[in-house]
């Protein structure tokens, strides 16, 4: 077996085959659980943990901010060591399948308890917790999601004489970039030469990751189109190369680039780090690969899951359910911590259709809300870490050294096949 989605493991199930939700009121909750998270997510859980404690006297929820940078080291050592983990872990959706596949039976399958919520979450987010099983196994509950759109500078577009609503396709986007650069000298977007940049986003927009059905899908038309687009952007000298997070933020703050194709959480960075640019940005859906193609994608998004080491899995589950399947709580996390919910009922809240002053009165959140429902789900695998290294060097070989996208992707597919033992998706020559 290719081994995606933990299919060859033997995961432990939490809860009876009969759904227990009816009994919740009857059983009094007691005990103490610990939760690991980071950053604003930890802040949100601390806040809701207090509410949960108030509603359930006898329950203690201890939320620990373990920091993001080395969170996975801590989680990996705990999973590998078979002990020492918290009762609830925050794991990004794109990482979860690596853990469930490499440590089968280390994370509870909560299908019996949480399976019925499947329809309430954005499909792309739900896919990260179910893997390829189509809902037979559910390894956690999705939390937030990163619907993608195009942030742009109104002043740059005006100076270049480009109507942002005219950006239907990526071809339009490149042409607009050329005009804006001619008129203003600004480049179009930032690329981090130590990262794969917008490549995974462009793949997901077309409904795939680097894998399809467990096979390597780097030679598909979608992959070739994505990398060809990136090469064109580089050749037209529309790319501003900046390393790391602070490089992207600085370049944006300095107005070096006119657009940023990125997820909804970018709004938080804009308002926090560049309040002086209030009114300069707007949001439109991503350009499509065809005029009627999908106009969004996904970057980021976390899940909450329960390791089988937990001594209080039922209580852990009740807390997860309280935080993530409750409309008011989800909305409060959006308002207060800026976490964009994957829980669809929360997206109906009026807050998301309010005018936003920072975006010159545009209803930016409404754009993301509309897009969030349509993000194509893609598959993540246990080999994503190997995939990432190879894709990064392939993408930058093309962008920085002008390699041919098709040939570079074929070579990447061969390397990845060798490293993982997976087959490649057959492509018509």
């Amino acid at each position, binding site marked *: 077996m290719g081994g995606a989605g933990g299919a060859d493991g033997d995961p432990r199930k939490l809860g009876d085959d009969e759904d227990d939700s009816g009994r919740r009121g009857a059983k009094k909750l007691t005990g103490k659980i610990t939760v690991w998270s*980071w950053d604003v997510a930890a802040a949100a859980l601390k806040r809701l943990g207090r509410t949960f404690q108030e509603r359930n006297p006898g329950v203690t929820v201890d939320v620990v901010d373990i920091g993001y940078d*080395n969170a996975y080291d801590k989680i990996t050592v705990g999973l590998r060591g078979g002990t020492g983990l*918290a009762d609830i872990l925050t794991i990004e959706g794109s990482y979860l399948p690596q853990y469930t596949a490499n440590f089968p039976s280390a994370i509870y399958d909560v299908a019996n308890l949480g399976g019925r919520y499947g329809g309430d979450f954005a499909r792309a987010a739900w896919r990260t917790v179910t893997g390829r099983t189509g809902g037979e196994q559910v390894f956690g509950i999705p939390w937030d999601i990163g619907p993608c759109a195009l942030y742009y500078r109104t002043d740059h577009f005006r100076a270049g004489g480009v109507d942002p609503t005219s950006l239907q396709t990526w071809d339009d986007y490149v042409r607009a970039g050329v005009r804006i650069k001619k008129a203003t000298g600004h480049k179009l977007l930032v690329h981090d030469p130590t990262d794969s940049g917008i490549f995974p986003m462009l793949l997901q927009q077309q409904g795939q990751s680097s894998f399809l059905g467990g096979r390597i899908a780097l030679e598909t038309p979608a992959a070739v189109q994505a990398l060809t687009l990136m090469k064109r952007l580089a050749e037209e000298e529309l790319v501003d190369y900046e390393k790391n997070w602070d490089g992207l933020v600085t370049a944006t703050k*300095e107005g070096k680039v006119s657009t940023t194709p990125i997820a909804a959480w970018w709004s938080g960075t804009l308002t926090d*780090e560049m309040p002086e640019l209030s009114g300069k940005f707007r949001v439109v859906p991503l350009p499509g690969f065809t005029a009627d193609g999908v106009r969004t994608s996904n970057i*980021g998004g976390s899940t909450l899951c329960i390791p089988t080491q937990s001594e209080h899995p039922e209580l852990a589950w009740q807390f997860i359910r309280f935080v993530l399947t409750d409309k008011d709580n989800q909305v409060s996390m959006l308002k207060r911590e800026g976490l964009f919910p994957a829980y669809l009922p929360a997206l109906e809240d009026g807050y998301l259709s309010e005018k936003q002053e920072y975006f010159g009165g545009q209803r930016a959140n409404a754009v993301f809300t509309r897009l969030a429902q349509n993000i194509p789900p893609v598959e993540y695998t246990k080999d994503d870490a190997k995939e990432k290294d190879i894709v990064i060097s392939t993408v930058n070989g093309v962008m920085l050294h002008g390699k041919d996208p098709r040939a570079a992707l074929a070579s990447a597919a061969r390397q990845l096949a060798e490293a993982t033992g997976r087959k490649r998706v057959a492509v018509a020559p």
Partner: protein
Amino acid sequence: MSSNPAAVRRLGRFAVRAVLVLGGVVSLLPFLWMATAATHSTADLFHSPPPLLPGGQLLDNLARLQESIGFGRVLFNSLGIAVVHTAVSSLVSAMCGYGLAKYRFRGRGVLLAAVLATMMIPFQVLLVPLFQMMASLGWIDSYQAVILPFLANSFGILLMRQAFVGFTDELIESARIDGCGELRTFYRVVLPCVRPQLGALVTFTFTAAWNSFIWPLLMLNTEDKYTVPVALNTLTGLSRVDYSGLMLGSLLATLPLMALFLLFQRQFVAGLLSGAVKG
């Protein structure tokens, strides 16, 4: 001019000072930038070029640091851990170095091999088994788990062995004739003679314990127990980094190390040793 020894000496001294100033500037430059960054808001730091002159946000940053990670508290934790670690580890290392340098005993070769092996093995592969040990001892989230495994410090043992290898035996013998026991000889006669190395050992051990990051991160699961590096790590989020808080925290974290270094400076000065021995 070369015939004038005074002039040559002046020139030499000038050259020495010039080199030291240059080295000092290079050493200091990154710290100056940290100090500058600590006085700005994170948003200001994202300007390009970044600000070079101090800003007015120092107190705000300090207040935020205290509020977000309880800086005073974690500073206190780090101090306690590092002091205990340094005191015990330096003593253990010095004793072991002395034993290896001055005695032949059965198992000495095995011990030396163990010292070398733990020094040579990349620490990263030991993390999981060591973690399992701590867990089975029930020590997760405790300070003994942070401190105990790394008390025996290979580098320190070799540094001290190095110091003792050439150490004269007559002195030890005469102390023994005076009726000193082995341990008493060691503390009263031998240790004071290797003060420069001991000062270096204490400084290095304290620095390593103070800056230790990945092991305390793995061991500690309560924010109240965090050390400075573990707490500062939480300032880095997924899509936001509190750079000014990081810079201020890091800068403040180096102050105790500098204080310690200046304190143990004395140990490096050989002149102070005269008469200090065999009191």
